[in-house]
């Protein structure tokens, strides 16, 4: 620690802190424009100048100059004030004064500073260059005439998001921020650039020209699009949600959101929200009152319970319940249906891994905290798609890497976002990541901690593998992230994770929905035998072991491969109860539809994947007659309380092993590609699928291939092609990616799309495929 004085106020700060940090600690205001504490200082605006008492006349930029012991910093000397005022006047030379029509007015750093420093005249005149205005990009509008060239967007995009979508172009006073070739944005749409822009140059299109910021009320809340449950600020105008921004990066807050969090909020009021309960009578869904609907559902469930036993009723949850609700539902399910099959579709992999970890250790699984991540010396990621499942991992990991000397090992069969940043990328032959994890476990477990036997099979370099084994064997500073495959098998990964959890600093299973962690760890909305996955469920229905389904926001038709088979199975059921906020494909088959509230309409707590507990207050009014899952439960429980309680051991469907691939059909052998379905950056979950804006970014089903394959097939950019697999065929937009292996196809945005789901098989990491140009 060093001690210095800022305007006479003594502060102690850690060695290496900047003068600005010391001033902040002393509570002294220093004007800044190009500084954002999320990224490294840059030194462009030169507004943060201060003077040292012993060196009068020399102006020190405080945002990056390290504080030294016994410095005496002055921030309001005449020289400093004069410099700040001149700097502001210079910035205004090229900045159009269109505050009345600028959305930023009221929260614009430049405006605030101009007022604070009483800059009322323009001694240098004005010369606003007309720079470009980009209105073509989705969701983000770039009005570069307003840009003050602070470089924050360029840096946050490159440093944290790792995209480098924005760059400086030209030199001197001709400099602009742009994309290569001036094209529209085609990026992650994390919105970080919008969140950092101090002026009105980068705008959220969903917010633009709608209102004025001073009419908004800011409500701290969380994003519910994935299990990281990032803190977010909701901005409301008379009860209407106007925009969502990352929580201010103060204190522990990381100040990060992704496209889903920042732009996915229109899902909350999507046209497919269910307004009132419905019941099926004479084959048609009729609107009904709550009591009637609950009685209708209870009666059907009771009939199944009586005729086939309680364990013939299965529950699938999308994990959008608060921890308290999940606890109540868990208790109810155990009491009423004997703890019969409970599972999830979206969070299946996560639940599988977590339950394996918990099974080894008892229910007390800590997982990794943000601090574990922050302080780790090395991160090992098992499985691809981690930062696609949880996009904010990308800036988190990039920020962590930036501090240098750190190792990021990623085991993946495709170039996902983290593989591209990895210091130790291990690219495994497509389809073999599970096997590889199994063999790695065997190797680690055996005395000779050697390398897996048949390296050639996995296609990894032996040095890289030795390094990975080294990391896992010796280091307590390692944090392991386990990313499940969306429709694949994850049992080997789960076993490896369980083996590692006491040997490394922390193991963090990924892939959970917003409160999967709370549902499993906090309250036990699980079945005694572990989660059942989709294929097991389908088979159990086909075999007549499961006769009824209770769906908590989940939809097997939109979430499981082979939708035709799933539909046939669902049609055999005696009863389906849909308790969901949204109309989805499966609601058409429901016997009763119970509209449930979204998390933002409820009160309660949730637990993030990283073990942070967050409390929720209703920021939005309930939609229509919808009720929270917690409110629905008592009526249902009461209606079912009278029935026979069946404590018998549930006939839990075992998680299905991947079915041995049938002898390849002739056409299968001739298929030159291998196709892997991967998570969508813009969210596959029930909530993200409802956002029209995220859907605009997804642009439908997409198939990604290497540049070489793309060219060999003679495809045009964004050409629609037909993808064929032994499971089915579908049309998708072709895309190329330089980082891809030849012969590999990635299928994006399959969730929620029957066409996409019909291409893949449950439990198979990857499937043979072919691409056919349409019309040839």
């Amino acid at each position, binding site marked *: 620690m060093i001690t210095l004085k800022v305007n006479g106020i003594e502060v102690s700060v850690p060695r290496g802190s900047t003068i600005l940090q010391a001033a902040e600690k002393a509570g002294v205001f220093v004007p800044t424009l190009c500084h954002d504490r999320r990224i490294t200082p840059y030194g462009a605006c*030169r507004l943060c100048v201060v003077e040292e008492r012993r060196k009068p006349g020399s102006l020190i930029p405080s945002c990056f100059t390290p504080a030294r012991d016994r410095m005496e910093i002055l921030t309001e000397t005449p020289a400093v004030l004069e*410099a700040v005022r001149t700097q502001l006047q210079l910035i205004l*030379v090229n900045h159009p004064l269109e505050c009345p029509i600028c959305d930023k007015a009221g929260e614009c750093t430049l405006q605030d500073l101009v007022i604070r420093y009483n800059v009322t005249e323009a001694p*240098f005149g004005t010369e606003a260059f007309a720079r470009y205005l980009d209105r073509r990009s989705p969701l983000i509008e770039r009005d570069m005439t307003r840009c003050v060239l602070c470089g924050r967007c360029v840096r946050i995009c490159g440093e944290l998001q790792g995209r480098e979508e924005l760059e*400086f172009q030209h030199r001197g*006073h001709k*400099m602009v921020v742009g994309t290569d070739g001036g094209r529209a944005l085609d990026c992650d749409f994390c919105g970080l650039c919008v969140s950092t822009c101090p002026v009105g140059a980068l705008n959220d299109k969903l917010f633009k020209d709608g209102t004025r910021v001073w009419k908004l009320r800011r409500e701290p809340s969380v994003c519910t699009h994935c299990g990281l449950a990032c803190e977010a600020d909701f901005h409301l105008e008379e009860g209407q949600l106007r925009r969502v921004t990352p929580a201010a990066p103060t204190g522990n807050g990381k100040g990060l959101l992704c496209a889903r969090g920042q732009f996915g909020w229109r899902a909350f009021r999507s046209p497919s929200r269910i307004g009132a309960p419905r019941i099926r009578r004479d084959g048609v869904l009729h609107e009904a009152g709550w009591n009637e609907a609950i009685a209708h559902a209870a009666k059907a469930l009771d009939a199944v319970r009586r005729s086939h036993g309680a364990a013939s009723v299965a529950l699938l949850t999308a994990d959008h319940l608060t921890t308290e609700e999940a606890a109540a539902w868990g208790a109810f399910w155990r009491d009423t249906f004997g703890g019969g099959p409970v599972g999830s579709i979206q969070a299946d992999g996560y639940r599988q891994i977590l339950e394996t970890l918990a099974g080894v250790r008892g229910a007390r699984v800590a997982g990794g905290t943000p601090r574990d991540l922050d302080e780790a010396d090395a991160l090992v990621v098992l499985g691809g798609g981690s930062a696609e499942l949880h996009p904010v991992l990308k800036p988190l990991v990039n920020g962590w890497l930036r501090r240098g000397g750190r190792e990021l090992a990623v085991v993946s069969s495709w170039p996902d976002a983290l593989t591209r940043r990895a210091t130790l990328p291990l690219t495994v032959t497509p389809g073999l990541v599970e096997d590889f994890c199994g063999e790695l476990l065997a190797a680690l477990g055996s005395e000779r901690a050697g390398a897996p036997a048949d390296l050639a099979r996995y296609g990894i370099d032996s040095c890289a593998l030795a390094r990975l084994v080294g990391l896992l064997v010796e280091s307590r500073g390692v944090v392991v992230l386990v990313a499940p495959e969306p429709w694949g098998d994850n049992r080997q990964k789960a076993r490896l994770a369980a083996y590692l959890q006491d040997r490394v600093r922390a193991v963090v299973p990924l892939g959970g929905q917003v409160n999967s962690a709370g549902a499993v760890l906090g309250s036990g909305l699980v079945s005694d035998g572990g989660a059942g996955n989709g294929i097991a469920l389908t088979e159990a229905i086909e075999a007549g072991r499961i006769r009824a389904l209770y769906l908590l926001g989940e939809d097997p038709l939109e979430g499981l491969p082979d939708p035709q088979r799933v539909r046939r199975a669902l049609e055999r059921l005696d009863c389906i109860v849909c308790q969901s906020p949204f109309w989805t494909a499966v609601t058409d088959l429901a016997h009763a539809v119970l509209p449930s509230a979204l998390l933002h309409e409820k009160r309660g707590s949730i637990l993030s994947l990283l073990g942070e507990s967050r409390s929720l207050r209703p920021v939005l009014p309930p939609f229509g007659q919808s009720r929270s899952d917690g409110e629905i439960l008592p009526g249902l429980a009461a209606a079912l309380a009278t029935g026979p309680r069946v404590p018998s051991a549930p006939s839990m469907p075992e998680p299905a092993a991947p079915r041995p691939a049938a002898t390849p059909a002739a056409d299968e052998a001739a298929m030159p590609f291998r196709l892997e379905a991967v998570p969508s950056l813009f969210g596959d979950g029930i909530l993200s699928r409802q956002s029209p804006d995220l859907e605009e970014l997804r642009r439908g089903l997409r198939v990604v291939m290497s540049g070489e394959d793309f060219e060999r097939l003679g495809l045009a950019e964004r050409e629609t092609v037909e993808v064929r697999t032994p499971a089915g065929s579908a049309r998708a937009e072709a895309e190329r990616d330089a980082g891809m292996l030849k012969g590999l196809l990635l299928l994006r945005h399959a969730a929620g799309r029957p066409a996409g789901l019909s291409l893949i098989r449950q439990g198979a990491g990857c499937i043979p495929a072919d691409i056919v140009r349409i019309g040839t």
Partner: protein
Amino acid sequence: MISPVSKIAYCASRTCRFRKPIDVRALLEKGLDELGYRDRIGLVETECLISCFQGPSIMLLPGGKVFQVLSEERFTETLRGLISEPQLPTLPPPGEPRIEPDIPGIEHIDFFAKQRLIVLRNRGHIDAESIEEYIAHDGYLALYKALTAMTPEGVIEEVKLSGLRGRGGAGFPSGTKWEEARKYATFPKYVICNGDEGDPGAFMDRSLMESDPHAVLEGMMVCGYAIGARQGYIYVRAEYPLAIQMLRTAIDRARRKGFLGRNILGTGFDFDIDIYPGAGAFVCGESTALMFSIEGKRGMPRIKPPRSTESGLWGRPTCLNNVETFANIPQILLHGGAWFRSIGMEDSTGTKVFSLTGAVKNVGLVEVPMGTDLRTIIFEIGGGIRGNAHFKAVQLGGPSGGCLTEQHLHLPATFDTLQAAGAMMGSGGVVVMDDTSCMVDVARFFTQFSVDESCGKCVPCRVGLKVLLGMLEKIIVGRGEPSDLDRLERQAVHIAATSHCGLGQAAPNPVLSTLRYFRHEYEAHVREKRCPALVCTDLIRFEVDAEACKRCGVCAKVCPVEAISWRKKEPAVLNRDKCIRCKACIRACKFKAIH
């Protein structure tokens, strides 16, 4: 016949060809043929023999005497005389007639006599493409000495003892920089040679890389040994194809001879050098921008800390020095730091190469001991002002240097004295101006350069300089007001005080120094709307002063649009309606009668 001459180097540069269109090579071939030396005396083509003002010239080797080729007619005869007698590298006894009166030897010319060559010593004397010739001139001896007889710390001590300061502009003590870079135990480390040389008018680094590339390589290798690096990069301006070619050849030869690569000279020291052609922006010469540029990023200066010696190229400890700095190293190791320190001044040791240009008679590169006064450089070496004009100012240190006046001519040229006077050493550009230069216009010219070259990162440099330029332009077209001068000064001080890198910090120097020493000229512009040097067109009335007019009529002859009427013995009359303000008459009038 045996001749003491083994080689003849001749200058093939365009400058010399322009001075006198003689095909020297053909002449030499013919002459040697006729004299029967064709097989015995080799011909070496060089780019410059440092005597551009009196070229074309040839140099006899060994010995290195330079002679001017004046006539084609008697060339063969002259040559016979020259090559049959030993051309000893010592001066002939004073007063003794030259061997051939038509061709004066260079050591008798002030331009050379006052110079002291350390880094330029091999220029033109050796064939840059021949490593053997470099070795024959003690080449790689310093490296050998360092590797076999000195510890890395010893090398650094020697460099510190020499007092060598960086020749790239800022004058940072090189030994200290090396010591810093050695301190960090992060590997790999890098050595970078800054050959970006963006200052317009400066070409000492180019000349060094072209004529003595091995000296630069050797300096880098010694540095690599001292700091513990195994890889060096030379960042060369892309506009220097010959320098790149010469360095490539040199690196190739050095690798083949075992001076570069693995296990150099059998000592176990590994070092290699690669060339990186520059990206073409002036600001890429700034050390951190240069490293970004090598990394393939936008060349923009970054914040410090960390210093490059801690985290430079690819985040590794990096020692970056200028070409001339490296070229000094072998000599320092060979002759010792104390020897180097004995040359020049206390706080600025050794020599400095200046590129002397502008209104002097002799222009070119001059290497003089640090602390040589400006008068010696301009009036003795440079031969004084060209034509019948008078010395007015000297601008030192490249585009962001400052302008000094007659009263500063006694100043010894050292890093600190120049800085104190408001100019700077910079890369060593010396632009001499006579009284036909308008200082406001000079300030505008250099400010324009900085405006164009600013990388655009920081507000004071990007916007401030543009505003400064606007103020100067306003003054130049006659719309300036007296109060503008204070605003100009305040603005310039603000830019210097708050800009991020050397470019912005120094860019106001031309304005500040001219305001300081030539304020009267600014006053004339803003108060009397008059440009005393008759440069700013908008402030010229274009009238003939009948009293001053000597009625010679030259003006009428040069006017391209016949706007001046003149009859014998009468003052000329200028018709302003026809005049296109080209100033041809003003330049032509010897009596300054038109203003």
